[in-house]
């Protein structure tokens, strides 16, 4: 029983898939944001795994993961601020309540 790169990638793929399902199926904006975080997390696992197995000395993947974390932290900050702003106008955090872009 050993752990190699495929196992890690498989774990990340499954987490990503679960996150994808959540992001697609949920109506609650907060829930969608959380699913997005789950997907970002899966991507980070991939980055770190590749970093450990392929470029252990340069640690490139680890640095990418750091910046990916920065981006997703910024994303959740802005995203949740948007959710709050939408809540103020619509008194709801359901995504279906926001249809202004309808053509």
């Amino acid at each position, binding site marked *: 029983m050993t752990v190699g790169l495929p196992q890690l990638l498989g774990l990340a793929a499954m987490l990503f*898939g679960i996150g994808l399902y959540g992001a697609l199926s949920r*109506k609650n904006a907060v829930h969608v944001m959380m699913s997005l975080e789950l997907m970002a997390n899966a991507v980070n696992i991939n980055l770190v795994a590749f970093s450990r197995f392929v470029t252990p000395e340069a640690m490139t993947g680890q640095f990418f993961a750091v910046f990916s974390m920065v981006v997703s932290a910024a*994303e959740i900050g802005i995203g949740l601020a948007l959710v709050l702003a939408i809540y103020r106008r619509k008194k709801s955090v359901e995504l279906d309540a926001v249809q202004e872009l309808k053509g």
Partner: protein
Amino acid sequence: MSETIPAVAFYLLAFAALGGAVSMMATRNVVHATVWLLEVMLATAGIYLLLGAEFLALVQVLVYAGAVAVLTLFTVMLTLRRREDAVRPFPPAWGSLALASLFTGAVLLAIRGFCSVAPEMPAQAPGIEEFGIEMFTTWMVPFEIASLVLLVALIGAVWWTGGDDR
């Protein structure tokens, strides 16, 4: 012996992460979902430790388990008017499920094909000191840009939430 202990730890952590993610999708309560997300994040931090990325593990705990989970909980609390609002029924989204499974299946198949050429884990990985040195030499400019991104996000978030006059 030295091989099996990390392997057992990995499978336990992977089970925790996947179980947490599934529970997060299965629960109807948004607050519970947040707690499950927190569990996934902590399990991921454990996996980073196994992969020798100590700094990332710490940042993962601080940023995801700390800040993101708390922020999410705050938003949930601010947008709940009644206790019952936390529980959201959700329709069975078969289309989304099919799409996500299709995607996951395809990627898993691709990984399976890649198994034979997968590299072995190198024995040694640099520690946190080398990470810090690299971070502030090679990656200095991206690091500064990242701080700028965070600043912009901060201002944006304040602008969106602050003030009733908008």
